[in-house]
């Protein structure tokens, strides 16, 4: 009997885990609370800026989105693995005829669907802008695509953080810290401060160009769907999912 999985069986295993995880989100009230808080905070901040600025675009929303995601995404992902470890269901999962990457992908996709559902909750803003005038739909589309890429990436390191600990709060804190590193390293003031610390090495600029999500994400919010930005998010997400898978394998040793 071979241990190789046929593509059909590989996808089937992911589907089983995906379905269980989606049900877990639906069954727990805490998920609705997170999504509601995220929507209320992000939309109310947008409405405030919208009335002050008086422009028919969603820039105020998408500009602040990375900061909201720093706090929101870890709340989605923190239970993903930490709960499996604390309830010992990890043993149940890891003794099923599934390979660990199927479980990782299943969990990741379910978290992504939950995030997208929360993001879809902002669609009334688009409808309102359409009702009020003629917003740039191309710009809105590319910004949503950026939000999807950004969220996908945050979810990947959120899952990785959750796999490092049995404690959900610790998982949340690790993911928030990682989020801050990836977002704040693109903040103008932080870049200036870091550059000022060691002017010869331009650490701030180096981090901005190589590590930060900001330049890649802001390309989308300016209406540019650039391949390097898409690849940046894709490869970094894949890297963290791979690390998550590695940490699961390490636990068997």
């Amino acid at each position, binding site marked *: *009997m*071979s*241990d190789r*999985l046929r593509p059909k*069986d590989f996808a*089937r*295993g992911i589907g*089983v*885990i995906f*379905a*269980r995880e989606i*049900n*877990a989100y639906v*069954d*727990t009230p805490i998920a609705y609370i997170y999504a509601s808080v995220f929507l209320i905070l992000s939309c109310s901040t947008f409405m405030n800026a919208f009335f002050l600025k008086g422009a028919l675009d969603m820039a105020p929303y998408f500009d602040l989105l990375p900061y909201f995601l720093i706090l929101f995404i870890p709340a989605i992902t923190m239970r993903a693995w930490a709960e499996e470890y604390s*309830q*010992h*269901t*990890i*043993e*149940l999962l*890891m*003794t*099923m*005829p*599934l*390979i660990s990457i199927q479980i990782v992908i299943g969990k990741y996709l379910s978290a992504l669907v939950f995030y997208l559902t929360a993001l879809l909750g902002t669609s009334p803003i688009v409808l309102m802008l359409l009702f009020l005038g003629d917003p740039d739909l191309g710009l809105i589309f590319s910004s949503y695509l950026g939000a999807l890429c950004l969220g996908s990436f945050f979810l990947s390191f959120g899952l990785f953080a959750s796999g490092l600990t049995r404690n959900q709060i610790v998982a949340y804190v690790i993911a928030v810290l990682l989020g801050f590193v990836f977002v704040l390293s693109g903040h103008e003031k932080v870049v200036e401060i870091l550059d000022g610390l060691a002017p010869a090495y331009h650490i701030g600029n180096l981090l901005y160009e190589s590590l930060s999500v900001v330049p890649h994400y802001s390309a989308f919010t300016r209406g540019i769907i650039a391949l390097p930005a898409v690849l940046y998010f894709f490869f970094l997400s894949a890297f963290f999912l791979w690390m998550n898978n590695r940490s699961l394998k390490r636990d*068997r*040793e």
Partner: protein
Amino acid sequence: MIQVTDVAKWYGSIRAVENISFSLAPGEIVGFVGPNGAGKSTVLKMLATYLLPTSGKITIDGLDAVSHPLSIRRKIGYLSGDTPLYQAMRVDKFLRFCGKARGLSGNVLKKNLAWVVDICGLSPHLYKRIDQCSTGFRQRIGVGAALIHDPPILLLDEPTHGFDPLQVLAFRDLIQSLSENRIILFSSHIIPEVSTLSDRLLIIHQGNLLADGRIDNLAEKTGQPRDLEAIFIHLVRQEN
């Protein structure tokens, strides 16, 4: 057929088990006895492919547990000592999830689910959330989940934990009814329970396998009466 040869497991610098060797054949009900922390769960976890042995070899039906974990998992029903269940799930949904994850679908899943519900007596609370069930009932759900794919090998870690005396009796009957052509290895630190349930015993203490055999043979070897408790105490004292 399960073949365990010179298996050791170290957690960093801590030795969990060492020099563990035994083989199990279909039709055997084997009790794995030892005090808490003796290494029973570690051995079962390695057999279930959850843990990798640090050294030694485990083969199941000729397949190596390290290089063929998926094939082995298809043959094994495993109940961990912690009874891992998704507490927020309904009992029927949980069993269906376990079946699907093990590749069952359609009529086979339906048939196996009905079988497991019947033999484990799960019908009274089938549509309840798991966290609303009693400890003993949860244990039965765990046994049901381990059996859902009708595996030829059953590994049960402290399966009667939380059972009342009547449930222990029912469990004994269940195990007897399942034993034909199946390997059943279960662990327990409750000696009378093991002696009534199993044909053969593996006695483990401080990570070492002290004895392997039928209770009559062990009594003969140790010069003790045919009483598992006396044999166990004799072997442990000898080891210490």
